[in-house]
């Protein structure tokens, strides 16, 4: 009960921030009734999904300061668990999704244990490698469709158990609920024992050790929490897109986007990943569809947001949120 109270406790934020949160929440609730087109709706769903990914990444990457570039493998685990169990055994989403999270958790402990012997860049490189290896395995694994991927069976009637709906609105509200669960969890997490310990590890590892903190175990725990978050998102991607393949759910591109959105918005802040996703997802989508239509301009969108990221990280490493705090005179 106390945990719920702590999770809903936003009192240490300024009045403006709380006001924006309320307005933003009303907007999110009302959004499907504002008459937006299907493209905009799809962008909104992407935005909520990537906010969820980013908030998960923020535990280890932001608060823990461990640059992690392999989150796509857990998106893949979540998505494949849901798809495979639906295609093979006709298992409902509400059972397969938690199973996917559990598998992601188990796998993240297995990967995290050896990985956290490494630090800094070496850790970042190793996370990329493990993700690429898993993607290669799935690309060549005939049983799960190899490079062709898996198509989910489409039900004739909308089915809540299998999360199959005719209208995007239902998916929208579902991902919105997940988004809020993640937001409240992160609000609890940032002031939890583990949250503080991670921030200490980020600041000064040697001192953290002298304060009774088992550094490696803390990092593994945070890494697993992040993995569970993205596995939930992966499960959602499977039922939303009704088709997954190793490129759409396990690509390096996805890992990097997850990390960059959180970093661009402001790592180690509650709003950072949301701001980052609000900025990059539409940019990515609109630029992608606009530039992608012109011959010779494919890939320019990637260049544009790579440049944006370089500018932000050179000017204010704490991201967009860091700039906002600086302008308000709160920054250091």
């Amino acid at each position, binding site marked *: 009960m106390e945990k719920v109270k702590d999770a809903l406790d936003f009192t240490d934020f300024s009045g403006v921030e709380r006001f924006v949160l309320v307005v933003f929440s009303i907007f999110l609730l009302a959004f499907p009734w504002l008459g937006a087109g299907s493209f905009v709706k799809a962008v909104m769903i992407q935005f909520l999904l990537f906010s969820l990914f980013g908030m998960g990444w923020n535990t280890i990457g932001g608060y823990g300061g461990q640059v992690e570039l392999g989150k796509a493998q857990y998106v893949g685990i979540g998505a494949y668990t849901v798809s495979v169990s639906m295609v093979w055994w006709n298992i409902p989403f509400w059972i397969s999704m938690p199973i996917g999270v559990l598998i992601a958790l188990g796998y993240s402990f297995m990967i995290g244990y050896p990985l956290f012997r490494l630090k800094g860049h070496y850790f970042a490189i190793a996370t990329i490698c493990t993700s690429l290896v898993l993607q290669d395995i799935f690309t060549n694994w005939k049983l799960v469709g190899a490079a062709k991927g898996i198509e989910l069976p489409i039900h004739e009637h909308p089915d809540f158990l299998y999360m199959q709906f005719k209208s995007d609105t239902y998916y929208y509200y579902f991902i919105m609920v997940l988004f809020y669960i993640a937001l409240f969890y992160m609000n609890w997490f940032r002031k*939890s*024992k583990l949250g*503080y310990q991670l921030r200490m590890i980020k*600041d000064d590892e*040697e001192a953290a050790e*002298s*304060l009774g903190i088992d550094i490696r175990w803390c990092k593994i725990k945070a890494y697993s929490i992040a993995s569970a978050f993205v596995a939930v998102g992966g499960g959602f991607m499977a039922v939303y897109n009704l088709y997954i393949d190793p490129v759409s759910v396990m690509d390096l591109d996805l890992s990097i986007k997850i990390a960059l959105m959180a970093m661009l918005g402001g790592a*180690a802040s509650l709003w950072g990943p949301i701001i980052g996703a609000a900025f990059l997802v539409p940019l990515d989508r609109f630029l992608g569809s606009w530039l992608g239509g012109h011959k010779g301009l494919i890939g320019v969108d990637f260049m544009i947001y790579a440049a944006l990221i370089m500018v932000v990280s050179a000017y204010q490493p704490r991201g967009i949120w860091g700039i906002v705090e600086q302008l308000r005179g709160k920054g*250091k």
Partner: protein
Amino acid sequence: MAFLEVHDIVKDFGGLVANSNVSFQIEEGEIVGLIGPNGAGKTTLFNCIVGYYSPDYGKVMFKGNDITGFKPFQTNQAGIGRTFQIMKVTTGMTVVENIMVGAFCRTNSRHQAREEAHEMLHFLGMEEISEQYINELPIAKQRKVGMARALATKPQLLMLDEVASGLNHTETDEMVALLKRLNVEKKITLFLIEHIMEMVMTVSQRVIVLDGGIKIAEGVPGDIVKDDNVIKAYLGEKYAKGR
């Protein structure tokens, strides 16, 4: 059984022997100083006890338990706190948050941790800096934050690495008073490395002297300053002979 027993510690950095068969004991409630010229192996000895290094040979016993080869977080949980000679200047957390991290060593509740951190700030008389960041503080205050967060882990033995270096006269006097208060009010055993002779001689009840990784003397401060080996180590052979 003594409170802290160190037996025959040897630490060899590939030919450079930093500690060579160092043995000593500390009783509960004592204030013990560890002195020696630069490069005598004082910090290495600290690190061997706390667990940043594992000694090549020897044994460390704390309250009757063998803690040799424990990791730093384990020795801390066992009840040994330590501060660092060089406090890393960080920008990520406020003073009170730093101390809360220490308090989280013994509690899972964020409310209790915050309460304890504020109590600690009150005890050390630095409530006014609780919301500042370490990089905004003068060095004497930074040291105190380092001590405060180590104290928040509720150690029974506190090991202080050059806690007075870089402090001016008044600040040093304040530090001496604080150490005595910790010892008397909080019943914490203190073990400190110190360069400033005046300080170590006033605060310590007993002094251990290291030189070249070897323990050359041990005793009450009054005897130590007259010890021939100690004078030799600090002032050179010539001075000791000509005396």
